[in-house]
């Protein structure tokens, strides 16, 4: 019955409830809150990437009008340490104080806090603070930092994490293989660039309590971190997440600014707010990505992959934070979609003097997918095989699932070849290959390239809480431990509950993102909301039916087997009651459930078709086809919206976006004119298609959605550009594929094609 309802009502897309307020400008973001007496914060930041903090001169700033306080670390009654999250051990011996105490380890590290009546006054005072730092050498590359004698934390190595996955591969495998290829890839640093930057407002409640409004992905985690760092009881801290203007992994963490602000709120007994500005957001923390990768792949003469080796040096910035987890996520997924008997990964998380990193949409999976998918294309080129054919020869087959990879992860369900074939049909792969051949033959039109990325990812970690209550008025309240940052939970979660209960979704109201109302929760990241939070609500709704049946059985003194449930009503022997009436008659009718399913493995294939002007280096993306398998899709409009948005973010990484530092370690991407995210003019024709392999580990059957576009797009574009330029050494291509990068690659990476194009250039100038 439940499955039938899901089939009838799932995969259906009502208008989003969130929209009514957001299109009227009636949303409520942290910056929109009006809390009486609230002071506005500005942070004084070190202007040196690495150095000894000699002094912070605040006297002049303190005398400025409307300024309440200007505090450096020495003025605070306590200087809490930024918690590293997820129990990351790398932070041991490497403390990150809320305000710098003796050293700064990235440009922009908070050194002092200004609180004033408004932001104008706060920024005036901020600019009047002088910070004296004696510079130390900077480290901007994780591989070089790993071997450097310059230690960010004297006595502790710069390599904060060094971990192996899978067994080391015997030299004989490489020696005896018919073909071995090697890749060297750079995943540039990226800025999350949610349109709303970080934002937090803290109001003290009595001597030992706080109410915290924060633009965040994980309110319960933030509550725990604040309690631990400040020595307060969790019960005395309430975290509320109002509307959030995008997050993409950069708002699931606890940051030093939040802790400094909390100390100030308690000390002053006044509400305080920090609204991060765009320059702060772009210079980070957080940054995303930032990996140096070396790959090696061996295959037999038929193209069967025998072994794959991946080495990662991940830049985690000046302090180990959640970014230290990202290379481990890459490692677990290193094997990709292939039945490769030997896979070995060595992952190092390395301190540098860039801003600390965090997960950014994809969080290690784009890095893993790009490494193996570029390497597979390199192998295809070496073997003279079509890259689609090489993939088809090596995919893990559906009958081999569940499949345990040599790096210790289990793939659940799917048909990887089917996704590739669907993508090929959708894009007209043969047609584009013919067009490519025609252009190469003609030699006049710009070269065309077709790039494939067949990815597997993992979604949804840890448990999640869900609760459903039938209210006496006939409505239902669903509580979730997740936390929407724009994904439309208010619309999609009630759909799940409605499908199970067989009632209209309008009767169900979602409550989440408030620790005072939701007893526990993990939050929204890792594409986990529907997969895990949805599964919890699905289970809670099912349990509510059973609870109601039991309640009526007791009331009628009949065996529970006689109680039937249909569309919000329980009945037996001609007697029937709605759940609301039952709650009114017998007391609260509510079920709380926690589910803890294993991680799921969404997958898919992306194909990009590009045209490259070798003279100008410009890349024109003609088509992107994205085939994704998210398991059961509850709201296809929301899921397709997530896919389209993440494809465009993936396009940003491929072609435009890069956080840049100068030689002194100072960020040079300070505005949205330096850090280029795609506009509408950059968006290529995009076609979405899906296969559906339900998650075998939950009754709901949903897998994660939301990050796939960032995972599949970059490697598809990279492989397409390498294909267009016919590069003998595709390793010369690194993202972002700016015109200069492609022009340079066309000159240096392409023996055959450069030779072939040389006479054309002469003809063209005639």
């Amino acid at each position, binding site marked *: 019955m439940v499955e039938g309802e899901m089939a009838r009502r799932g995969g259906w897309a009502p208008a989003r409830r969130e929209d009514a307020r957001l299109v009227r400008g009636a949303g409520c973001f942290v*910056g929109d809150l009006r809390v009486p007496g609230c002071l506005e914060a500005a942070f004084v930041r070190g202007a040196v990437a690495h150095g000894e903090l000699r002094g912070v001169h605040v006297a002049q700033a303190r005398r400025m009008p409307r300024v309440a306080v200007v505090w450096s670390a020495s003025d605070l009654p306590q200087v809490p340490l930024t918690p590293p999250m997820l129990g990351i051990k790398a932070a041991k011996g490497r403390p990150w104080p809320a305000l710098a105490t003796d050293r700064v380890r990235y440009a922009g590290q908070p050194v002092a806090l200004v609180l004033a009546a408004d932001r104008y006054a706060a920024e005036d005072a901020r600019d009047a603070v002088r910070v004296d730092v004696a510079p130390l050498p900077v480290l901007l590359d994780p591989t070089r930092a790993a071997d450097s004698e310059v230690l960010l934390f004297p006595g502790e190595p710069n390599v904060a994490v060094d971990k192996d996955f899978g067994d080391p591969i015997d030299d004989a495998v490489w020696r005896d293989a018919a073909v071995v290829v090697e890749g060297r890839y750079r995943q540039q640093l990226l800025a999350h660039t949610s349109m709303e930057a970080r934002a937090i407002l803290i109001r003290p409640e009595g001597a030992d309590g706080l109410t915290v409004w924060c633009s965040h992905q994980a309110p319960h985690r933030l509550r725990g971190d604040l309690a631990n760092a400040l020595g307060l009881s969790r019960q005395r801290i309430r975290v509320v997440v109002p509307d959030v203007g995008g997050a993409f992994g950069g708002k699931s963490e606890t940051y030093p600014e939040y802790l400094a602000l909390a100390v100030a709120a308690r000390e002053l007994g006044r509400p305080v707010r920090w609204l991060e500005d765009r320059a702060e957001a772009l210079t980070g923390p957080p940054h995303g990505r930032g990996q140096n990768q070396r790959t090696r792949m061996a295959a037999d003469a038929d193209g069967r992959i025998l072994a794959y080796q991946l080495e990662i040096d991940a830049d985690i910035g000046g302090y180990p934070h959640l970014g230290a987890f990202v290379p481990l996520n890459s490692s677990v997924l290193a094997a990709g979609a292939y039945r490769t008997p030997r896979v070995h990964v060595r992952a190092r998380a390395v301190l540098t003097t860039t801003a600390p990193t965090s997960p950014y949409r994809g969080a290690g999976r784009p890095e893993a997918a790009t490494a193996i998918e570029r390497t597979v294309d390199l192998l295809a080129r070496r073997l003279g095989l079509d890259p689609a054919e090489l993939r088809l020869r090596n995919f893990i087959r559906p009958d081999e699932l569940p499949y345990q990879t040599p790096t210790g992860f289990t793939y659940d369900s799917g048909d990887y070849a089917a996704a590739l074939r669907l993508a090929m049909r959708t894009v007209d792969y043969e047609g584009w290959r013919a067009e490519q051949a025609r252009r190469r033959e003609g030699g006049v039109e710009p070269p065309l390239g077709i790039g494939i990325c067949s990815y597997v990812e993992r979604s949804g970690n840890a448990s999640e809480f869900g609760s459903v209550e039938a209210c006496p008025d006939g409505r239902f309240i669903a509580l979730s431990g997740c936390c929407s940052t724009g994904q439309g939970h208010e619309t999609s979660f009630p759909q799940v509950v409605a499908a199970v209960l067989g009632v209209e979704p309008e009767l169900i109201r979602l409550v989440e993102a408030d620790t005072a109302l939701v007893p526990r929760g993990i939050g929204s990241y890792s594409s986990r909301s529907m997969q895990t939070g949805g599964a919890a609500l699905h289970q809670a709704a099912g349990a509510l039916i059973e609870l109601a049946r039991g309640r009526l059985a007791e009331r009628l003194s009949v065996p529970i087997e006689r109680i039937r449930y249909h569309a919000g009503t329980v009945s037996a022997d001609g007697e029937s009651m709605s759940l609301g009436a039952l709650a009114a008659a017998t007391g609260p009718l509510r079920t709380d459930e926690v589910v803890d399913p294993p991680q799921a493995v969404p997958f898919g294939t992306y194909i990009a078709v590009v045209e490259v002007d070798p003279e100008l280096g410009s890349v024109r993306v003609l088509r992107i086809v994205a085939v994704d398998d998210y398991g059961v899709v509850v709201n296809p409009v929301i899921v397709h919206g997530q896919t389209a948005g993440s494809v465009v973010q993936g396009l940003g990484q491929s072609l435009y976006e890069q956080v840049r530092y100068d030689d002194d370690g100072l960020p040079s991407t300070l505005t*949205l004119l330096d850090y280029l995210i795609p506009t509408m003019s950059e968006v290529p024709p995009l076609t979405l298609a899906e296969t559906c392999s339900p998650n075998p580990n939950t009754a709901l059957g949903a897998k994660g959605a939301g990050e796939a576009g960032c995972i599949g797009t970059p490697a598809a574009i990279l492989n397409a550009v390498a294909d267009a330029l016919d590069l003998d050494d595709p390793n010369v291509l690194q993202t972002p594929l700016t015109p200069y990068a492609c022009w340079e690659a066309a000159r240096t990476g392409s023996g055959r094609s450069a030779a072939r194009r040389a006479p054309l250039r002469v003809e063209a100038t005639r």
Partner: protein
Amino acid sequence: MRTRLTVNGQARELDVEPRRTLADALREDCGLTGTHLACEHGVCGACTVLVDGEAVRSCLMFAVQCDGRQVRTVEGLAAADGTPHPLQEAFSAEHALQCGFCTPGFLMLAAGALARDPSVAADPDRLRELLTSNLCRCTGYESIRRAVVRAAGELDGARHADS
């Protein structure tokens, strides 16, 4: 400085510092927080409002520059009786917003353009140029384009019905 302006049809008299941006005056002094600030340096367009019918970045304009002028914000987009503007309905219908932070800016950008020249929505190149003015990090833009085309059709239909 004393500044008199009309916001969404309502006369306002503000006493602002010369350096106060229009965005801050709207948000803080008029309590109209629907206008969002995302970059504060004139690139993203989230703070777009109409001044005398023309789309401006309210983070790049001082409040005092609006003395004697008409300002329209997202709060003034719907009809006085609350009936949503066709753009507001179309943005929801086409799923042209996710987090919704950039949405007021896109709405005002499109509202200004369609009021001035409804044919912009029928010309793909001009429409693309127009919507390239603003940034969105969630949607990938295509749904925003569709929403503006849809709303233009609604507005066109309403015009013909009136005439």
